[in-house]
């Protein structure tokens, strides 16, 4: 997914808020052209700007755009030992103010290099930028106070009109805080789909509410003891808010969800969605979030909105069923000697059709010499008998366990049968032993015998809050979503902007918050999937979860 695509979509959202503040934005066309320059590096005349960083290094492609380093929010970034300061309108066009909380966050909130620490420890005071000093900064790298800017800041070849356009856009950038935040509260929501099993729904909501209660107790405690910390924590309290969690229950078919979500949002706008649970496609919910620039952290779904996820506002744990299809293809493509033929049996429903299409595409790309046989559920056994495949992949979709068990019984006994992860309980508990022995399952989670240090702490945290741990994986997933949101919110301090939250999540996800559901969780700029791989596992009665690894970690 290209960076320009990310910034373009998020930029589109940013231009919506231009309309809300015309008095600050200059003329619309100026701001529009400035936005284009900021997000893509394209000048008013349609040509790409040229720029050199580090004195003599010409930059190319999307990396020339202001948004690359200063990010779509304009709040800058800290990466690779380089501190990129915020350049939103209120900051740029006012005299530089020292902010002790922001300084503490930059200086001590991350493990950066000595050069980085030296940079943020030397605040450069400067007057407000004016058109001519902004032009000088962009072209010559000298700030409004006459000081030289960092060599990493490119020196651009821009006309006066380009600079004016950019100034018009920057005045509007992150000028209006996102809805859902008051001086005391942050409104959050979690979405629950109509067919979510009661036990899972209850476990997720109980976990989230426990986290909200715990956060709120901490916030109230900190607020009631002003000056409590001799160190810097006290400075950060001003950005803390109590959390108010709204449960958005959806009814009916997915096509009707957007209207229901709009109604909930209309009654009480929220700043972010956290966790969530729905059977079926997440796309209607993701599209709603994109249309409101509403960050959504880690819903529990097998069917994320994949095709526009890269530029969107929803973060997922993984690519769900597509990951499993691609993982199976990679697993089979790596077999030696190479396989002759693989049979794919497609069950009922759209999810099965999607997985089958993904598998076909991935196998064709990774193992073009392997013959792919395809059949529907009813013809599966006949196709297996006539085609003599080396392996059989089944995407059951909405097919019932009984029908699936009947099919498996009819398949040739010597061939391995591969199933997606949602049939793990079926394979380990429902199938007869001799049938289970031939099953291979996709497993996008950490193996049960791996021990993550944080898992002990999270369990202890849950127990000490009286939470029953009935659905450990799901509760750990919800807990991760809540802790990551907490960590990202604390980076914002008082600057509650959607794009800034997205950027904070991107950079905080890889920290030490993973409670062990996945081997690793990490994001980066523009990344939307925390975990990128899976195991192939076999049924093993002796293993704690009933399955044991049949492959290394596969990252297709």
């Amino acid at each position, binding site marked *: 997914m290209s960076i320009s695509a990310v910034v373009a979509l998020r930029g589109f959202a940013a231009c919506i808020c231009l309309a809300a503040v015309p008095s600050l934005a200059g003329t619309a066309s100026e701001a529009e052209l400035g936005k284009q320059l900021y997000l893509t590096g394209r000048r008013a005349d349609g040509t790409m700007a040229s720029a050199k*960083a580090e004195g003599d290094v010409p930059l*190319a492609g999307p990396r020339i755009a202001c948004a690359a380093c200063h990010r779509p929010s304009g709040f800058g970034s800290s990466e690779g030992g380089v501190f990129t300061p915020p350049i939103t309108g209120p900051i740029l066009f006012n005299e530089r103010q020292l902010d002790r909380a922001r300084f503490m966050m930059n200086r001590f909130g991350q493990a950066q290099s000595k050069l980085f620490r030296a940079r943020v420890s030397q605040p450069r005071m400067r007057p407000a930028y004016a058109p001519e000093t902004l032009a000088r900064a962009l072209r010559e790298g000298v700030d409004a106070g006459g000081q030289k800017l960092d060599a990493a800041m490119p020196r651009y070849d821009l006309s006066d009109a380009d600079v004016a356009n950019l100034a018009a856009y920057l005045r509007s950038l992150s000028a209006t805080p996102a809805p859902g935040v008051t001086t005391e509260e942050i409104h959050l929501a979690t979405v629950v789909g109509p067919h979510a099993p009661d036990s899972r729904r209850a476990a997720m909501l109980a976990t989230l509410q426990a986290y909200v209660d715990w956060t709120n107790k901490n916030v109230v405690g900190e607020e009631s003891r002003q000056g409590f910390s001799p160190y810097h924590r006290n400075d950060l309290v001003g950005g803390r808010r109590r959390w108010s969690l709204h449960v958005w229950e959806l009814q009916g078919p997915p096509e009707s969800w957007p209207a229901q979500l709009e109604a909930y949002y209309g009654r009480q706008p929220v700043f972010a969605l956290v966790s969530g649970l729905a059977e079926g496609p997440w796309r209607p919910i993701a599209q709603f979030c994109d249309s409101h620039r509403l960050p959504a952290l880690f819903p529990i779904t097998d069917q994320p909105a994949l095709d526009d996820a890269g530029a969107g506002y929803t973060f997922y744990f993984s690519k769900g069923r597509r990951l499993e299809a691609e993982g199976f293809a990679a697993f089979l493509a790596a077999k030696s000697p190479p396989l002759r033929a693989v049979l794919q049996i497609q069950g009922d429903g759209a999810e099965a059709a999607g997985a089958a299409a993904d598998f076909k595409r991935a196998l064709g790309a990774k193992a073009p010499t392997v013959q792919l046989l395809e059949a529907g559920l009813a013809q599966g056994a006949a196709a297996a008998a006539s085609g003599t495949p080396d392996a059989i992949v089944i995407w059951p979709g909405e097919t019932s366990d009984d029908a699936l068990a009947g099919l498996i019984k009819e398949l040739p006994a010597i061939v391995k049968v591969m199933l997606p992860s949602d049939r793990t309980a079926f394979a380990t508990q429902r199938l007869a032993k001799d049938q289970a022995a031939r099953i291979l399952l996709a497993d996008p989670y950490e193996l049960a015998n791996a021990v993550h240090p944080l898992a002990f702490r999270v369990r202890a945290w849950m127990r000490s809050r009286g939470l029953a741990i009935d659905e450990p994986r799901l509760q750990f997933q919800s807990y991760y979503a809540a802790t990551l949101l907490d960590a990202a919110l604390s980076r914002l301090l008082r600057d509650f902007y959607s794009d800034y939250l997205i950027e904070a999540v991107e950079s905080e996800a*890889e920290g030490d918050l993973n409670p062990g559901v996945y081997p690793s969780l990490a994001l980066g700029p523009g990344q939307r999937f925390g975990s990128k791989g899976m195991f192939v596992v076999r049924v093993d009665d002796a293993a704690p979860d009933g399955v044991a690894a049949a492959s290394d970690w596969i990252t297709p």
Partner: protein
Amino acid sequence: MARLSLGRLAPLGFLLAVAVAAPGAAQQSNVVSRLASYQAPAVVLTDSADKRTRLDALLAEDHPVILQFIFTSCTTVCGVATSTVLAARPDLAALRDDYVALSISIDPEYDTPERLREYAGYFPPDPHWRLLTGSRDDIARVLKAFDAQFSDGTKMTHQAATFLRAAPGRPWLRIEGLIGCKELVAQYKGLLSDVSHVD
């Protein structure tokens, strides 16, 4: 940025910790660099053309090497660091044309060969340049071998650095932070002339 010589006080403990003034560079260098010995681990990495390569074998070939750690979703330093090596190509090649420029991903699960190709597409093509990725464990071993692990386990805090080496068996020159083309060429020239003096 004020490139203080702070970095020169940093991690001694290993060999030959000296600040290198490139021969022929008349003005004083403000680049923080030091010589060090690194042993590449015997790991198999995959390049942007899906070709698998043993890193230790690749580095044992008799070529000068310019090595950087990058990740393709990086929007800040990685693109500048890559641009420096690619833009310096005419001057580097004029000194010695058989060098190998390596960009090794530190985000290997995201940076598939396909993503490496997409990243390469943002830059001018350069036959010296190879982009490599691998398994998470193998990349961790490479980072450790080059003393380039990120301090709190998150790639966003990785330090921009460029590693130069004139020939197998010669020490590596580790340059910390971002540098310009002229500086890179001067350092490359210094390393090459150092080899010719010694050998």
